[in-house]
């Protein structure tokens, strides 16, 4: 017998139906939140952010590529990184296959990082992602959204002596140190283009990325073991081509 409680199909069915009622309520509350997101006011983006892309230098408005909506994933790949953040890479695994479907919904999706374009594109080739990736010219674009931190800001965290094992592990996997790694932050920012003006409509980070961009959590949340992430162990996530080596 397994450690887990075993039931008859009838017992399972009764409990499953009770849970379904709550799952539906959660789905409907999610629908309401989506509506509220759409009701957020739009903020005109007044700064002229510039990006280096495989088609030359571009503005934020250029990045829409003829569509009216733009989703940017702020991918942690700073100038000292030798490879992209493993967790951002798992997020990218979720985003890249969506590009044709999102494109059909008037939405361009791409990645933005502070690292040099040639490193980003070489890493993209290794990972097999078919999505545009741009390198910011200057740090303002990530900085203004809170996805780039200065050494001064990070000082207390870095000197606390309490750097989580996950941070140490990921820094090493990126070929940098903790300071280099956490200078970058992950996030998703969303824009609308209307009459030639770019508006910022939505920004999210941290666990706010789980819903849209970490598809494996949606699946794990329905498995018997769930996420199975003990607090005393570093995160299990690896790059998709590195699990066998881990």
């Amino acid at each position, binding site marked *: 017998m397994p450690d887990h409680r075993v039931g008859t199909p009838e*017992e399972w069915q009764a409990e499953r139906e009770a849970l379904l009622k709550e799952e539906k309520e959660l789905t409907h*509350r999610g629908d309401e*939140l989506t509506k*509220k*997101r759409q009701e957020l006011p*739009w*903020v005109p983006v007044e700064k002229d952010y510039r990006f280096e892309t495989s088609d030359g230098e571009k503005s934020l408005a250029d990045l829409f590529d003829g569509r009216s909506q733009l989703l940017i994933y702020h991918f942690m790949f700073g100038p000292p990184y030798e490879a992209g953040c493993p967790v951002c890479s798992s997020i990218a695994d979720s985003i890249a296959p969506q590009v044709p479907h999102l494109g059909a919904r008037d939405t361009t999706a791409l990645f933005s990082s502070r690292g040099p374009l040639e490193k980003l594109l070489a890493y993209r080739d290794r990972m097999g992602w078919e999505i545009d990736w741009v390198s910011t010219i200057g740090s303002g674009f990530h900085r203004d959204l809170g996805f780039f931190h200065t050494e001064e800001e990070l000082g207390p965290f870095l000197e606390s002596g309490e750097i989580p094992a996950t941070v140490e592990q990921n820094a090493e996997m990126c070929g940098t140190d903790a300071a280099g790694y956490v200078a970058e932050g992950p996030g998703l920012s969303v824009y609308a283009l209307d009459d030639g003006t770019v508006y910022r409509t939505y920004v999210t980070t941290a666990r706010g990325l789980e819903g*849209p961009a970490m598809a494996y959590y949606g*699946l794990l949340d329905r498995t018997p073991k769930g996420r199975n992430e003990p607090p005393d162990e570093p995160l299990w996530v690896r790059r*998709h081509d590195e699990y066998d080596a881990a």
Partner: protein
Amino acid sequence: MPEHAVATNEEWQVARKELLDAEKAHMRSGDDLARRRRELPWVPVEKEYVFETDRGTSTLAELFEGRSQLLVYHFMFGFGYRVDEENPGCTGCSLVADHFDGVIPHLNGHAVTLVAESLAPLEELRPYKQRMGWRFPWVSSGGSDFKHDFGAAFTEEQQRSHAEYNFREVTGIEPQREGMSVFALQDGVVHHTYSTYDRGVERFMGTYGYLDVAPLGRNEEGPADWWQRHDEYETRKKERR
């Protein structure tokens, strides 16, 4: 000026923080439901099921591929579900399946195997899989009652009278519907732990996660009104802005 409300950054911050509180409450309710899912009793699977796979005939236990957890996506394909001759696979299931290859290495790295099953024979599944560029394991379940028993395929009698789908009685059910069933393997015994159907599958469609944060949202009359296979958006353009 756009038709939408425009604000200063400070005004947006206030509205965004208020929404963030609601998003966090929603996420914690989701965490609570994930915990409750894990508390459901497990039901031993006593019937024998067989599947045709790329490596020959397999039992349900063999589909785990040595891992302890198994997710099976009920993919609508063949036997009463055929869109047309060129496009035998369900369009919505194809959109769901576009999300699999990106997550499979991560799931496999965390003790979970994900496979798709369809009633159609492998010879029919293979060309479509190749066309779509998919790598995930796709097995044929037509040799036993698996798809029927886990609530994703319906007999002609059920289609004429009534059937249970998504844990309720429905009339006029289609021959097949979408769903995901989950199993645990312990001490050689397979247990059914969870199944989800209908909008329960949306959580596996990352595309909706992105559209739900985009300014226009899902922008659809009904879920299926814009879906295309990923290689068909150009040829079957139904632009709506």
